[in-house]
Structures are given as C-alpha cells and as structure tokens.
C-alpha cells in the first residue's frame, strides 16, 4: 500500500518530466542514492561509516569500462552479460577485502582506514596504465543495447536505475532481517558479547562489507553508463565526500535517507548557480552539511519522519476532539 504510493509517481516521472529533469536530476539522484545507500547500510546496521564506497563503485565501473566498448583502446571486449556479473563479483570481493582489513576497527578508526584505502585506490588508478589507463582513464563507454534500445536512453536508464534502487532497498531490508543481518547488528551493539557466544566477529563484518560492495557495484555500473567515462577523478576525494554528504544529509539511520539526500544534493548542485557564484558551491554544500550535522544529526529523513508523526498526532487529536464534541 505504502510502497505503491511511492512507486506510482516514480514510475510516472518519465512521462511528466522533460529529458533535462529526468536525466540530470532524477536518474542522477537515483544513481548517487544507490551508492550512498551502500554507505548508509553499513552505517545503520554495522555502525561503521565507510569512505571506501566510491572505491567499490569505481571498481565495478572500471570493470565495465575495461571489458566493454571504449575509445581509449585499453581492455578486452566482452559481452555485457559477462562483464556485468564480473563487475559485481569484483566489487563484492573488494568489499569483503576491505571488510577484512577493517574488521577490528570501529567508529573513527574505521573512518580513517576506509578513507586511507579510498585515497590509496585513487592514487593507484592514477599510476596504473595497464588496467586503469592512469590519469585519463576511460572515455567513450557505451551502455549495452538490449532489444534495439540502448540502456543509456533517458527513460530506459531511469527505469533501470529505479529498478536497481528498488531492488537494493528490498535487499537491504531482507538482509537486515536475515540471521546474518541480525548478527551484524549484534556486532554493532556488543562485539564482545557476540564473541562470548562463540560467533566469530570477522564473518559478519566481512559479509556486511561484501554486501555493501554489491550495492555500490550496482551504482557504479549505472554511473559509468550514465557518465560514459570513468577516470581517477571518479574515485577521488571529491566523489568520496559527495557520497558521504548525501548519506549524512539524508540521514544515516534509515536506508531511504540516502535517496532523499541524493535529491537534495543534485538539486543544490544543479541550481546553486542561481543561488550563489558557481565557484562557491563547496561553501554552500559545506554549510548545508554543517547545519544538518548541528541541527538534525539524523538527517532529513528523521526530520520528515518527525514532521509526519506530528501531523498524524495532530490529526488524531483533532479527530478525537471532534468525536468528543459530537458525543456531548
């Protein structure tokens, strides 16, 4: 019922919006939201804020670029039904590896380690020419053509992103309720008790990171089709911070917050030029982040939920008083 209310307008969007709004705003927000979801998933259920999610998305994106049609002459061309699973496999494996490295780190230590991993990957892609084509990276990447339509078509890519986002949200909520997901939340709350019960802590942590790699990888594949290029800058500190900002603005306590944050971020990014000098976008987004962190640490999602709850309470109350009046 509730999901239907949300889904219907989202499905109707391509018939209402023009190409600019559909591609530049809606699709972009969905893709960024998927990557940010992988971050807020880890933050919500494992209690770890990871700065390496762009790295995982980048690994999937680079895989698509390397094994797909591109104009830089690096890589091997493979059909998309091989390269897509390969991309997801690599991002999941990389996620598991990062989880293993950071398995004993919590809180700020985990932040620092994942940040260092993300930046090391950025430098690595700049230095390596055999696989990552160094500084310049890949350009001219084309999305696969299925049944005569390119997946890069505005409405096709939109529906693809929407479907991926929906699957990701469903997977996250299923995962959170599965035994492994519960073990992850137990590790978040009391790692020493989990160990006392004889459950190894490493497995849930690695699994959580691997799962976040799957979601980030999905976002990364869509992103490389959307951008049609990928380079070291796509995995640099800028995008790393962007995704963090999105997740925090939206709220780290609920998976859907990521998409809320992504919409706000994309709208600001697109229309900041009308508000202030284009060059000062970072000041604007930095101030927005600061205000959110100071005023609403659980993000816009929490603000919206609170507002809805208040409205309901009011309705409830006025309904009650109305009833009382009729009774007397």
């Amino acid at each position, binding site marked *: 019922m509730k999901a239907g209310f949300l889904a219907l307008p989202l499905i109707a969007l391509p018939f209402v919006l023009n190409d600019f709004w559909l591609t530049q705003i809606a699709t972009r927000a969905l893709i960024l939201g998927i990557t940010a979801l992988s971050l807020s998933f880890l933050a919500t259920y494992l209690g770890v804020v990871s700065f390496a999610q762009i790295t995982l998305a980048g690994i999937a994106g680079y895989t698509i670029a390397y094994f797909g049609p591109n104009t830089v002459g690096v890589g091997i061309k493979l059909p998309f039904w091989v390269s897509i699973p390969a991309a997801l496999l690599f991002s999941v494996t990389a996620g598991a590896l990062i989880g293993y490295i950071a398995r*004993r780190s919590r809180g700020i230590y985990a932040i620092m*380690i994942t940040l*260092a991993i993300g930046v090391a990957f950025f430098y690595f892609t700049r230095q390596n020419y055999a696989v990552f084509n160094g500084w310049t990276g890949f350009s001219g990447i084309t999305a696969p053509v299925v049944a005569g339509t390119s997946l890069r078509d505005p409405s096709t890519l939109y529906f693809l992103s929407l479907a991926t986002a929906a699957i990701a949200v469903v997977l996250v909520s299923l995962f959170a309720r599965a035994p492994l997901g519960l073990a992850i939340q137990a590790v978040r709350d009391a790692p020493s008790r989990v160990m006392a019960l004889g459950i190894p802590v490493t497995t849930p942590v690695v699994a959580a990171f691997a799962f976040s790699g799957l979601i980030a990888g999905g976002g990364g594949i869509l992103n490389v089709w959307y951008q049609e290029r990928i380079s070291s800058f796509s995995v640099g500190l800028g995008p790393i911070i962007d995704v963090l900002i999105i997740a*925090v603005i939206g709220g780290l306590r609920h998976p859907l917050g990521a998409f809320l944050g992504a919409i706000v971020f994309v709208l600001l990014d697109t229309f900041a030029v009308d508000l202030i000098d284009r060059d000062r976008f970072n000041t604007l987004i*930095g101030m927005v982040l600061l205000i959110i*962190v100071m005023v609403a640490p659980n993000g816009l999602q929490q603000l919206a939920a609170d507002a809805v709850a208040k409205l309901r309470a009011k309705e409830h109350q006025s309904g009650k008083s109305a009833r009382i009046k009729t009774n007397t």
Partner: protein
Amino acid sequence: MRLFLIVTLNGLTLAALYFLAASGFSLIFGLMRTVNMAHGALLLLGGYVGYDVVELTGSWMLGIACGGLAAALAGAAVQAGILGWMQGDELRQTLASIAISIVLADLMLWYWGGITYQVSLPDILSGGQKLPLLGVGYANIRLALMAFAVVVGVMLWFLIQRTRFGAVIRAGVDDQDMLRALGFPIGRIFIAVFALGSALAGMAGVIAASALSISPGTDLQFLLSSLVVVIVGGMGSIGGAALGALLVGLAEQYGLAYAPTYGVVFTFGIMVLILAVRPQGLMGRSEQ
C-alpha cells in the same frame, strides 16, 4: 650510495614535516577523542597567513609565529563554536569537522586563489650545506626543518610530561569525568589543547610553504598523511606520531626513488600490515 643518502635525508625531511602536522592531530585526538578532519585546512591557513606575513614584514620567524597564531585562533573558534558542544559524539564531530574543512578550503581558494605559494627564505636558511662525513650537499632549510621538528618534539614531551598543564592533559586522557569532578574547567582546557594542536599545524604549514610549497590540495595531502601517521604510530601518542612519521616519510621517499610508480601503495602496505598485527597502532593503547 649517494642516491641512498639523499633519499634517506629526503625521507627524514618529510618525516619531520609529517611529525609537525600529525603531532597536533594526535594531541587533539588523545585528549578529546575528536578526529579533527579540518586539521589539514588549518595547516594550509597557517601556511597562507605565514606567507603573507613574510612578504609584508620580511621576517621569517614572525611568519612562522603568525601562521601558528592564525591557525590556533581558527582552531579555538572551531572547538568553542562548533565541536565543543557535540563533545562525546565522535561521529558527529568528525562529520562537522569535514564540513568545516570543506568550507574553509573553499574560502581559502577564494581569497588566495589557486596559485602555488613558496615563502622566501631568510639568508641563513637559503642555500645548502656540504654535510661532513656523508659527503653530500643538502639544503639548509631542510636541515633546519629537521632540527625544528626535534625541538618541537622535545618541547611537547616536556610540556606534557613535566608541567602542570601537561599533567592536566594526561589526567584528562585517563579519566575525563574525574578531572571534571575535581573542578577543572574541562571546556576551556579542551579549547586550549585544540588551539595548541592547531598552532602546531599552522607552523607546519608555514614550514611546508618554505621547504616545499603550498597550494589548494596541500590541506588534503597533510590531512591524509596525518591520518596514516597516527594510524601507524597510534592515536594520541606523541612518540607514536614521531615513529609513524619516520616510517611513513622514509617509506614514501624510498618508494618514490626505487619504485616510482607505486610509491603511495608502499605507504598503504605498511598501514595494512600494522593494522593486521596491532590495530591500535605501534605505540597506541588499546581502546578496551
């Protein structure tokens, strides 16, 4: 052999710079559990202010002092105005300091532009020195930088281990609630330590601008190196910062000289290795 000596000296120079930057970062973390992601921005601010002062007055020492002072004031303002009232919520503080660093970096880019600055050196520090015994020539400023790092290290050690203020800091690290219960103004102590850590960053910025150069991006470079140094050395330990800086600085320079393509990955390898063996860092204390 000559190359090896030069590379070693370069590594030590870099280590000295990393130590200056990371010691302040580590000091702040040790007492307040605050990961100050704006540390790099404060360092760059110090560097820019120092450059302006040196250009204006011609005095290098004054430039260092003013760079440190500017960063200290900015750091105190950050702690007093923003981070102070989310004390205890580490994640929130980290995110807030990221926001501050984004805004600060952008405003500095606005004011100072995207150009590279290099502080002009006083006569005694410009030029080089033929080193006895080693038989290689080396720039004066880099030797001075190493000496400066040693002096700062010793002074920090003295401040923390031998003075009353240091005793208060150490007490705060061990048992904050007890310190507060004894009537120490913990809020003001926090601001003072934040200012001290930021001053170290600011001075490091001016010195980085003298020995190397600074430009937008320097802030992130030093923030990241500080992170790696304290992860390797152990959070909150000055000795750890020194050891971590030495390891990272040397590894980076040897990496650059002998495996130029993957120098950065070298540093990263050390970090992963240490995390695998000692998650709290070489000299860090375990959290539990």
